């Protein structure tokens, strides 16, 4: 099983997680820029964080055989904070970077006028930088927020095929599928989605434009949820190639629209994911 985790916040994770992810087949990931868990108080706090996403965290991931990419944006929650909004002026510098494969996470948190403006402006940035967009859907008032999200996407002029609408669930999947956007699902231990509900959704809606992520961060979450979803798919009768489509080909196709994905093997790491599945002892190379 080869896995591309299209949404995971590695800055909040340990090296044990990296080792476990590699051992279970994760070879590439995307780390979206997001909230820190507590409010930022200045633009400098963002830029230091962005520097980590395009620099240190990429380097750290590479030590464990995993290709790291990121998305850059002002997140919806902090779009409401006047101390943070000026970060929009430095985004163009970051959107030009090698490891940046989308504008994100953008979208709605509380659906305020400020969020409207920042969301639309960042979709314009995505168009200008020829990048896809990763759109977060709100935790509260989710269906209404998702519909409003799709309206803003439509008005922006960005192609629907260049938009991934994330954190979907049973009530919100249909409208996104209908709109022609990519559908993202965050598989969590006890909130958002779980792997068995995910399998049910895949059976009902098919595999096209379906994206599964762990969205693991500093909260209670599990960086192996992508792998566990793959296992659940197999147990439910999906084939290996179905699993590969959802866990690798789909995210690669979506983020590949940036033309910036790097997916070749890192030097010193063996190619066959099955050889050392679950066995980190066989992991080769690196600087350890």
């Amino acid at each position: 099983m080869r896995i591309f985790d299209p949404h995971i916040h590695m800055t909040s994770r340990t090296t044990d997680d990296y080792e476990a992810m590699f051992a279970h087949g994760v070879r590439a990931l995307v780390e979206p820029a997001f909230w820190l868990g507590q409010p930022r108080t200045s633009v400098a706090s963002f830029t230091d964080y962005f520097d980590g996403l395009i620099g240190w965290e990429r380097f750290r991931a590479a030590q464990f055989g995993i290709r790291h990419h990121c998305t850059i944006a002002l997140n919806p929650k902090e779009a409401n904070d006047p101390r943070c909004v000026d970060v929009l002026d430095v985004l163009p510098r970051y959107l030009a970077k090698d490891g940046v494969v989308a504008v994100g996470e953008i979208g709605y948190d509380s659906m305020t006028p400020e969020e409207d403006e920042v969301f639309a402006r960042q979709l314009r940035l995505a168009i200008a930088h020829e990048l896809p967009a990763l759109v977060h859907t709100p935790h509260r008032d989710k269906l209404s927020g998702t519909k409003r999200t799709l309206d803003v996407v439509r008005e922006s002029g960005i192609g629907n095929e260049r938009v991934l609408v994330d954190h979907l669930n049973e009530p919100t999947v249909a409208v996104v599928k209908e709109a022609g956007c990519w559908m993202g699902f965050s598989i969590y231990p006890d909130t958002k989605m779980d792997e068995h509900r995910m399998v049910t959704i895949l059976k009902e809606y098919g595999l096209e434009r379906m994206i599964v992520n762990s969205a693991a961060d500093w909260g209670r979450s599990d960086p192996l949820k992508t792998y566990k979803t793959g296992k659940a798919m197999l147990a439910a009768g999906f084939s290996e190639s179905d699993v590969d489509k959802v866990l690798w080909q789909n995210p690669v196709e979506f983020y590949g629209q940036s033309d910036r994905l790097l997916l070749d093997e890192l030097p010193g790491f063996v190619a066959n994911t099955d050889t050392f599945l679950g066995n980190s002892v066989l992991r080769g190379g690196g600087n350890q």
Partner: protein
Amino acid sequence: MSYHLGYGTNGFANHRLDDALELIADLGYTSVALTLDHDHLDPYADDLAARVDKVAATLSRLGLRSVVETGARYLLDPRRKHYPTLVCDEPERRIDFLNRALRIAADLGADCVSFWSGIRPSTVDPLTAWRRMRDGVTEVLAEAERLSVPLGLEPEPGMFVERLSDALRLREELGAPELLGITLDVGHCVAVEPQDAATCIRQAADLLVNIQLDDMRTGVHEHLEFSEGELNLPATLAALTEVGYTGVAAVELPRHSHAAPVVAARAIAALRAAAVHPTFPTTDFPGVTVDHPWLVTAEQQVRTDPTAIRTLFPAVGRKVGRDPLRPDDDPKGLVHGTVDDAARTTLLGVLADVLDPALLAGEVAQLYRYGDDAERRGVLRSLTTLPASAVPAGLDIIKDALRANDIRLVAAAMGEFTARHLDDHSWRHGVLKCLFVGVPLAAVADLDRRTDDELRRMVSDYAAERRAAGREVPADATTLLEGANS
């Protein structure tokens, strides 16, 4: 590590060898091409061993690296120039001489022994001459292998092995022996090669064991001072850097002995002007600059509008690639850098040309501040190309990089700029950091010159700490400490 500029003692034929070596070192050369001759370490002298010891001590005292040259005119036969040769009817004395030269080179600690084929006598047909070359070289190689001293076969205009392609073919036929390398005279390239010297250098690349520097005109085998002939000296030196050549590159002006001190002074001035940063391997990559159309366009854009560099700089890797320049011995590009490092250096060079120095420091600082790891490396490796007014800004950048734990940044931060400008304390900590995080010390420019007792103490303590913990001491640490005892 870069190549070592030197001077050939055959250009000091009217000086005692000791005097010649002193003069060469005084002028700033760091190597010498030593032609064994009747008056310069005569290999047939009765007290040869003592003489070799004395010369070895002098080379060591003066800090001169060396190669041994065997092109003396009348050393073996007082009547016939260069005779006997490997392709004549009685090559035995030549073979014996080359074997002696190998032993002397071993005792001197020289890089290699250079030799040529000799002129094919009109009475010897080419097939016989070729067979004699093969036999003779095979015989000498046996001694070279016993002593572990490389041989450098030098294509020589007018001789049987005349061009680089001849020498490479002979080497192939002999099974590409590891110890049979190439000596390349860049002037000869102008005179007889179908391609320029830089191209020859790239073609021979890893086989080069010795370089001779001089100017020449097309078709004329006459060793000239630089700029008197047609050689493109900057491009030639840049090619040496590009292929990662680290050996001796010595001026070869055997017919200028009558004015040797003056000629040698002029030569090193010309070399320094042509290679602004001869010890920094990553400031000039002509292969990249001329070969990639995107970069050519990018340079023009920066010339027209310097702020264009803000969007071009991050895109470099996507456009020109990211491979290490010397993948075989530097797979991560930590020591010699990467293709995108080289291209970014080119762009910053253009920026430095067109931007007011006062604005330049600020722009470079911003490129670093907002750069990802690759862009930051590009800035770090470019700092030597910037004017003196940018040094304070450069030092701030270096100190930032040395606080990082990304080994690519740490490696790029220990280059020539740092060797020249960083204070002792910070520099020592930089070296120690390299040992800690696994950056090869080959990435540290001017390591030998800047290593002092305090660094040795620090490294010695570090080694003790490793041993106390039952851990391996990095080989680079051991080497650095052993250097202190020799």
